[in-house]
C-alpha cells in the first residue's frame, strides 16, 4: 500500500537508499535501468527525492528496462534520445526539475513500441553520437551548493544561451499586439466576441504569467493553476480598485465596457513587461508536437465528452430526451477507465488535459440545463451579478443584507467578463465559470501527485469529480467554484518544495485573499482547516520533542524535520484577511458569530441536512419538518397585525397540505429485465448510492488509521499535509455535528472542499481495507470500487436502470427540475408582473424556490434596493391582498416545495384554496398569477 500511495518520497531517507540513488544502481547493485551510465540521476531527478523502494511498486521495476529498450526509432528528437546529449548538457540550474519530473516520464513510459520511429534520425549502435558543439557552462552557485534560487531571482543569462526571442517570436508578439488592438476596437464598438473576449481578459494574461519564471520548478498543470488563479485575483482586486478610484474622478460606471477594456489592456501590458524581464523558456509546443497517437486519441475522447455534454444538454432543454447525455456519460466513463487502465503509459500532462475535459463535461451537463439560469444558489448569484452590471458599479449598499454581495467572484469578476465576452448574462456563469472551475480537479490531481502514484491520484480524482455535490450542486454555486480554485492553488503552493518557505507563505496569503474575496463560507472552512492543521501539527511536534529529549534521541527524520509553511503567522494572516474583508469592509462575518453562538446553544438539535453522514446523529423526518413549519406559520398568522392580513385559520384549515414525496423514475427496459429476474432495482440504486456515501466516509477513517499505524506510509507524505487533511475532515465533522453550520454553509460542499486535501487519504483507506487480498489486488480492487461508485454517483447507473430520483442533468423531471429549472412561461409571467402595481416590496408570494421566488427580485435590477423579498405560498401564510404566482411544477405536479431546517420537503398544494379566495388574473398554461 505504501508503495502504491507513494510515487515519491521525502527528500531525506536512510543512507542505504541514498547511496543507491547516487550511484545510479538499485538495491541489488545492478545498474538502474532506463538511465545511461555516466549520467548523474540528480540531473533528471532531484536528489533525495526518490528511493529504490519506489522501484518496487511495479512502476519502477528493477530489471524491467534494459539498454535493449532503447532500440532505434523509439524516441523522437527531444525526448531523451540515447547519445544525443552529453552530461555537460545537463548542467545544474539550466533545466528545471519540471522538465524531468518522474511524474511526467516514468520508466514505464518508455515501453517498447511507444515511440514512433519517424523522428529518430540516427541509428542506435550502442554508442553516443556527438551533438553540436556546446561548451559546458559552469554551474551556478546555488546549484553548486545544492540550493535552488528563489523564484524571484532571475537566472543570469550565459554567453552561450540561445537567444530567447528571435524573428518568429517577434512576429508572434506583433501578431498578438495586433489582435489585442483589434479586440479593443471591436469591443468598444459593441461587437460580440465570446471567444476572443475571454482570450483577451483571461487566457492572454494567464499565458503571459505562465511563461514567466515566477513559477520556477512547477509542472505545466501547476503553472496553469497558479497563473489562472493569479489572474482571477488580479481581476478581482484590480476591478475593486477601479471601482473605488474612478467614481471620485468622475467616472460613475467604472465597471462598464470602456474602463474594463482599458484595465485589461493595462493588465496585459504590465504582464508582458514582466514577462519580458522574467520570461521562461518553456517547451510546451514541442510537448504538444511529441504527443503519441494514442494520447491524441485519449484527449480527443475527452473533447468528445465535452461536445456530447453540450449537445445533450441542448436536447434536454428542447424536451428531446436524454440519449445524447447518456452517451456523453458513457464516453466519460470509458475515458476514465482508459485513464485507469493505461495510466502507466500516459504522462501527467496528457492525464491532466484529459481530466480537465472530463471534469468540464460533467460540469456542463448540469450548468447548461435550461435556457435561463437553472439551479439553486445561482439564482441569487445571478441577481447580484445583474445588480452590479446594471449599475456599472459594485457597492455593498446595493444589497446590504445579502452576504452574496460581498463575493467579488459573482459581482465584479462576472461583470468584467460579461463586458468583454458580451454574451447573454446567464452564459457567463453557465459556460465561462465552468471553463475556469474545471481546472480545480486538475490542480487537485497535481497536488495529490506530489505524494501519490498516478493510480492513487486518479482514483482520488474519481471520488472528487464523482461526488454528487460536484455533479449536481457546484455548477450552480459559482462563487464557490472560484473559491475552490484558490483553495487548490493554495494546496499546491503550500506543498511546493521547490519554493522557499517565505515564497510559499506569500502564495498562501495571496490564495487566502482570493478565497475570502470569492466566497466567505469557503474561507471559514479554509481558515478552520489551516488553524486545526497547524494546531494538530504543533501538538504532535511538541510531544515528539518531549519524547525525544526524554529518550536522548537526536535522530531527525524527514517526518520530523520537513519544513513547515503554515505557522501561527500564516493562520493569523488568513484570519486577518477574513476579518478585514468580511468584518470591516463588507460586514458579512456577523452571521458566522451568530452561528457559532447558536451552535453552542443548539448542540442537542440534530442536523437534518446530512442524511448520508456517519458523523451526524438522528435526522428530522420530512413530516416533522412540515409539522414544525405549519406550527410556525400558524403562530405568524395569529400574531399578525392587523388581523385581516392573512386569511383566518378557520378558512385555511379546510384545505389540507399532506406531505408528498417526489416519485422515482419508472424502470427502464433494462431495469424491468433485472426486476423480472428478482433484482430489486430501486433498492439496489438506493443502496449503492447510500453505500457509496458510507463507504467513502469509512475509507477516510480507515485511511487516517492506516497513516497512524503505518510509519512507512506516513513517511510518504509531509506531516503538514497529513495534518491539513485531518483538519479538513475535522472541519466537516463540525459542520455535520452543529446544525447551524450544515444549514447555512452546506456540509456536502464542505466535504467537497475537504476532498481537495483528503481524497488520497480516502484512497489509502480503501486500499488498506482491501489489503487482505494482496498488495497489488488491493489497489486494483480499490480502483474498481471507485469506478463503480463513480458510475453510480454521476447518474449513469440509475438512469439506465430507473427506479431512482431523477437528476436534472439527465431528466426533465424530479425535484431539481421542478424547482430549479426556469421555464419560458415563468419568465413571461414575471415580465407581465413587472407592469403591475404593488408587487414589491412585500406584495408578492411565490413557492419557495430559486426559480419561483428569486426571479421577481431581479426582474428590474436597476430599481432593486435590496429590500425586496418574496413570501412563501403556504396556505396559512397567504395574504388577502398579495399577488400569488404558481409555477410550472405546482401546476403540473400539484406539489409545492418547502425549505426548512435545511431540508427540502414537498407537499400537495391546495390550489382550490386560491381558486376559492382570489382572482386568477394571468394564465399561460405553465404559470398562473392570482390577486
Amino acid at each position, binding site marked *: 500500500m505504501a508503495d502504491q500511495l507513494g510515487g515519491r518520497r521525502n527528500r531525506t531517507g536512510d543512507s542505504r537508499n541514498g547511496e543507491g540513488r547516487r550511484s545510479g544502481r538499485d538495491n541489488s547493485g545492478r545498474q538502474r535501468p532506463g538511465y545511461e551510465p555516466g549520467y548523474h540521476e540528480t540531473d533528471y531527478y532531484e536528489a533525495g527525492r526518490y528511493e529504490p523502494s519506489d522501484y518496487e511498486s511495479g512502476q519502477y521495476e528493477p530489471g524491467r528496462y534494459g539498454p535493449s529498450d532503447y532500440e532505434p526509432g523509439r524516441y523522437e528528437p527531444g525526448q531523451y534520445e540515447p547519445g544525443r546529449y552529453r552530461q555537460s548538457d545537463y548542467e545544474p540550474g539550466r533545466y528545471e526539475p519540471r522538465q524531468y519530473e518522474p511524474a511526467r516520464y516514468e520508466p514505464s513510459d518508455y515501453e517498447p513500441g511507444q515511440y514512433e520511429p519517424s523522428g529518430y534520425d540516427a541509428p542506435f549502435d550502442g554508442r553516443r553520437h556527438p551533438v553540436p558543439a556546446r561548451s559546458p557552462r559552469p554551474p551556478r552557485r546555488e546549484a553548486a551548493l545544492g540550493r535552488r534560487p528563489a523564484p524571484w531571482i532571475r537566472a543570469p543569462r550565459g554567453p552561450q544561451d540561445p537567444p530567447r526571442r528571435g524573428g518568429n517570436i517577434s512576429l508572434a508578439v506583433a501578431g498578438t499586439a495586433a489582435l489585442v488592438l483589434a479586440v479593443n476596437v471591436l469591443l468598444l464598438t459593441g461587437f460580440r466576441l465570446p471567444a476572443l473576449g475571454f482570450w483577451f481578459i483571461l487566457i492572454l494574461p494567464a499565458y503571459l504569467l505562465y511563461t514567466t519564471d515566477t513559477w520556477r520548478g512547477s509542472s505545466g498543470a501547476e503553472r496553469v493553476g497558479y497563473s489562472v488563479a493569479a489572474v482571477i485575483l488580479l481581476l478581482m482586486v484590480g476591478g475593486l480598485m477601479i471601482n473605488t478610484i474612478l467614481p471620485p474622478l468622475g467616472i460613475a460606471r467604472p465597471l462598464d465596457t470602456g474602463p474594463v477594456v482599458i484595465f485589461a489592456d493595462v493588465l496585459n501590458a504590465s504582464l508582458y513587461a514582466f514577462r519580458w524581464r522574467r520570461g521562461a523558456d518553456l517547451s510546451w509546443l514541442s510537448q504538444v508536437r511529441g504527443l503519441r497517437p494514442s494520447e491524441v486519441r485519449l484527449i480527443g475522447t475527452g473533447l468528445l465528452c465535452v461536445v456530447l455534454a453540450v449537445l445533450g444538454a441542448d436536447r434536454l432543454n428542447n424536451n428531446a430526451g436524454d440519449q445524447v447525455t447518456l452517451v456523453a456519460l458513457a464516453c466519460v466513463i470509458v475515458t476514465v477507465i482508459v485513464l485507469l487502465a493505461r495510466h502507466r503509459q500516459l504522462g501527467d500532462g496528457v492525464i491532466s488535459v484529459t481530466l480537465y475535459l472530463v471534469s468540464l463535461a460533467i460540469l456542463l451537463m448540469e450548468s447548461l440545463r435550461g435556457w435561463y439560469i437553472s439551479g439553486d444558489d445561482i439564482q441569487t448569484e445571478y441577481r447580484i451579478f445583474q445588480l452590479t452590471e446594471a449599475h456599472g458599479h459594485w457597492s455593498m449598499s446595493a444589497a446590504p443584507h445579502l452576504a452574496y454581495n460581498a463575493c467579488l467572484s459573482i459581482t465584479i469578476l462576472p461583470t468584467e467578463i460579461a463586458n468583454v465576452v458580451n454574451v447573454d448574462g446567464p452564459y457567463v456563469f453557465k459556460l465561462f465559470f465552468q471553463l475556469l472551475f474545471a481546472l480545480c480537479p486538475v490542480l487537485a490531481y497535481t497536488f495529490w501527485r506530489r505524494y501519490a502514484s498516478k493510480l492513487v491520484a486518479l482514483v482520488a480524482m474519481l471520488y472528487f469529480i464523482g461526488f454528487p455535490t460536484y455533479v449536481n450542486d457546484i455548477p450552480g454555486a459559482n462563487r464557490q467554484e472560484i473559491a475552490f480554485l484558490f483553495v487548490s492553488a493554495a494546496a499546491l503552493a503550500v506543498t511546493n518544495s521547490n519554493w522557499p518557505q517565505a515564497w510559499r507563505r506569500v502564495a498562501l496569503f495571496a490564495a487566502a485573499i482570493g478565497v475570502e474575496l470569492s466566497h466567505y463560507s469557503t474561507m471559514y472552512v479554509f481558515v478552520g482547516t489551516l488553524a486545526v492543521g497547524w494546531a494538530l501539527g504543533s501538538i504532535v511536534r511538541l510531544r515528539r520533542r518531549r519524547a525525544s529529549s526524554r529518550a536522548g534521541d537526536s535522530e531527525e527524520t524527514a517526518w520530523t524535520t520537513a519544513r513547515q509553511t503554515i505557522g501561527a503567522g500564516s493562520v493569523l494572516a488568513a484570519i486577518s484577511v477574513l476579518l478585514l474583508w468580511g468584518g470591516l469592509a463588507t460586514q458579512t462575518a456577523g452571521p458566522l458569530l451568530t452561528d457559532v453562538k447558536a451552535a453552542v446553544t443548539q448542540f442537542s438539535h440534530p442536523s437534518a441536512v446530512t442524511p448520508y453522514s456517519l458523523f451526524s446523529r438522528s435526522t428530522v423526518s420530512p413530516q416533522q419538518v412540515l409539522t414544525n413549519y405549519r406550527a410556525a406559520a400558524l403562530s405568524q398568522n395569529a400574531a399578525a397585525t392587523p388581523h385581516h392580513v392573512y386569511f383566518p385559520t378557520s378558512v385555511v384549515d379546510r384545505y389540507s397540505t399532506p406531505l408528498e414525496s417526489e416519485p422515482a423514475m419508472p424502470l427502464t427496459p433494462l431495469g424491468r429485465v433485472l426486476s423480472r429476474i428478482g433484482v430489486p432495482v430501486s433498492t439496489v440504486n438506493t443502496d449503492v448510492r447510500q453505500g457509496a456515501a458510507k463507504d467513502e466516509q469509512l475509507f477516510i477513517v480507515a485511511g487516517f488509521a492506516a497513516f497512524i499505524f503505518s510509519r512507512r506510509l506516513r513517511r510518504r507524505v509531509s506531516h503538514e499535509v497529513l495534518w491539513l487533511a485531518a483538519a479538513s475532515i475535522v472541519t466537516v465533522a463540525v459542520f455535520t455535528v452543529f446544525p447551524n453550520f450544515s444549514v447555512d454553509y452546506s456540509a456536502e460542499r464542505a466535504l467537497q472542499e475537504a476532498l481537495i486535501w483528503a481524497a488520497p487519504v480516502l484512497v489509502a483507506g480503501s486500499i488498506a481495507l482491501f489489503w487482505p487480498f494482496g498488495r497489488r489486488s488491493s489497489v486494483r480492487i480499490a480502483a474498481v470500487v471507485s469506478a463503480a461508485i463513480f458510475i453510480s454517483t454521476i447518474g449513469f447507473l440509475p438512469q439506465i436502470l430507473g427506479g431512482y430520483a431523477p437528476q436534472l442533468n439527465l431528466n426533465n423531471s424530479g425535484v431539481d427540475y421542478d424547482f430549479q429549472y426556469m421555464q419560458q412561461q415563468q419568465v413571461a409571467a414575471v415580465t407581465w408582473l413587472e407592469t403591475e402595481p404593488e408587487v414589491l416590496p412585500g406584495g408578492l408570494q411565490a413557492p419557495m424556490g430559486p426559480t419561483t421566488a428569486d426571479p421577481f427580485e431581479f426582474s428590474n435590477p436597476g430599481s432593486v434596493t435590496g429590500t425586496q423579498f418574496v413570501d412563501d405560498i403556504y396556505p396559512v401564510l397567504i395574504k388577502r391582498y398579495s399577488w400569488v404566482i404558481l409555477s410550472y411544477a405546482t401546476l403540473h405536479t400539484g406539489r409545492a416545495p418547502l425549505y426548512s431546517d435545511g431540508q427540502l420537503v414537498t407537499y400537495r398544494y391546495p390550489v382550490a384554496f386560491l381558486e376559492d379566495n382570489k382572482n386568477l388574473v394571468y394564465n*399561460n398554461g405553465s404559470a398562473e398569477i392570482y390577486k
Partner: protein
Amino acid sequence: MSTQLSERPTERARERRWWPVVAPLALIAIAASLILPAGRHQWALSLFRQPTYYTSLAFDDSTELPSTAVRGGELNFSFTVGNHEGRSVTYRYLISEGSSGKGHAVGQSKKTVAPGASWTVSTAVPATCGGSPCRVQVSLPGHPEMIDFLVTLTASQ
C-alpha cells in the same frame, strides 16, 4: 529487441486498419443524417434552441377588477389574449358567470390573431349570477388557459 521490433508494425497496422475505416464511416453517417429531414431535426434539437409555444390570457388593470356589483348591473373589464404559438390562431373567448359550480355564458367572440400579436378585449357583461359571490370566468375553448374573478353581488335598489 527483435521481438519488440516485430511487434511495432503489428500495432501500427492495427491503427491503420481501424481509423481509416471508422473516420469515413462517421463522416458518412453525419452526412446522411444531414440529408434526411428527420436527421436534420435531430441535429437542430441538439444545436439550436427550439421555440416554446403557448398562449397567454390576462386581465388588464387586474387590480381594478370589480369586486362588488349590483345584481343585474354591468361588469366592465378588459382582457388580452397573447398568441405565442408561432402561427396564426383563431381564438374564441367565452365569458361565463356562475356560483357554486353552476355557470352560464354571458358573452363570446372570436378573432384570428397573428403570431406574436395580441388581442385586447374590453367588454361589459351583466351581473346575472344566482348566488354570491359570483365567479366571472374568461376561457378559450380548445385551449387550457382561463382566468376569472370573484364579485360580490348586492340586491338592486
